[in-house]
């Protein structure tokens, strides 16, 4: 039996500021859009980080993605994240 080894899996880590945390980028962009007469109600900035991870299995890769997102890509006092699978090209 051949072990599926070292396959690459892609994930998008979507990082959002937690509810109630000030978003200066969003607030400033909002002000400018309003002045340009766009009917925007809100603008919120977040990050979208795409990772490719080599692991034996999809599950193992996703676990790593979660760990990376939690430990390195975000600070939990400020941000929440969500992990989205990316279809392999």
């Amino acid at each position, binding site marked *: 039996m051949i072990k599926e080894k070292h396959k690459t899996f892609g994930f998008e880590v979507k990082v959002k500021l937690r509810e109630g945390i000030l978003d200066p*980028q969003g607030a400033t962009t909002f002000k400018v859009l309003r002045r340009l007469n766009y009917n925007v109600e809100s603008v919120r900035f977040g990050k979208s980080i795409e990772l490719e991870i080599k692991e034996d299995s999809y599950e193992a890769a996703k676990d790593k993605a979660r760990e990376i997102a939690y430990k390195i890509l975000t600070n939990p006092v400020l941000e929440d994240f969500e992990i989205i699978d990316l279809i392999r090209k």
Partner: protein
Amino acid sequence: MKNGNLLTAGIIVFPGSNCDRDAYFALTINGFNVKYIWHDFNQLLDFDLVFIPGGFSYGDYLRVGALARFSPVMSSVEKYILNKRGLVLGVCNGFQILTEAGVLPGVLTVNTSHRFICKDVEVEIINFDTPFINNVQKKILTLPIAHKEGRYIVIDNKLDPTNIVLKYKENPNGSFDDVAGIVNEGYNVFGLMPHPERACHSVLGSEDGNYIFQSIRRYLTGAESINN
């Protein structure tokens, strides 16, 4: 051609600009009659030189220079350039705003080190024959840089190599072709990342920036080489 004593300069101030006062000092030393122009009005710009200073217009929150380009004054600047009323000098954030506005080709983005860099660098003069640098005997100027987003990028051959005015001797930020400063096709707009206004007085350790301000004076007054 103008009497040198009457040369005027307007410094555009956006919310978040922070080198406007430094520019005022440097331009005054170099004999300009200087006025600040608040960004929020569309008005006739009746100056020999329009200076767009460094800083963090609108916090540089979306992209550097991106939100400032929508300020009302920018349509006045575009008209000023089109009608060739005078010269436009954009330094650091000013350069970023001019590229975002499409007045100069390309774009400036984050340094390869992903860090802010504050230091003096050597830049080589590539084009000695623009309104902004002329009759200068030196080949290399030492000028301060202070930016996190000074990496110049241009695609589709949009930049004519003869429009490159200054190149870094040692590329600090990953700029394409070591570009530190460029002019537009019409030679009336100059954008650069280094800060000539920070090198305008012996007390500040360097006067190399004055080569640029004095070149501008020479061009505007039609004078032959005055000094340097």
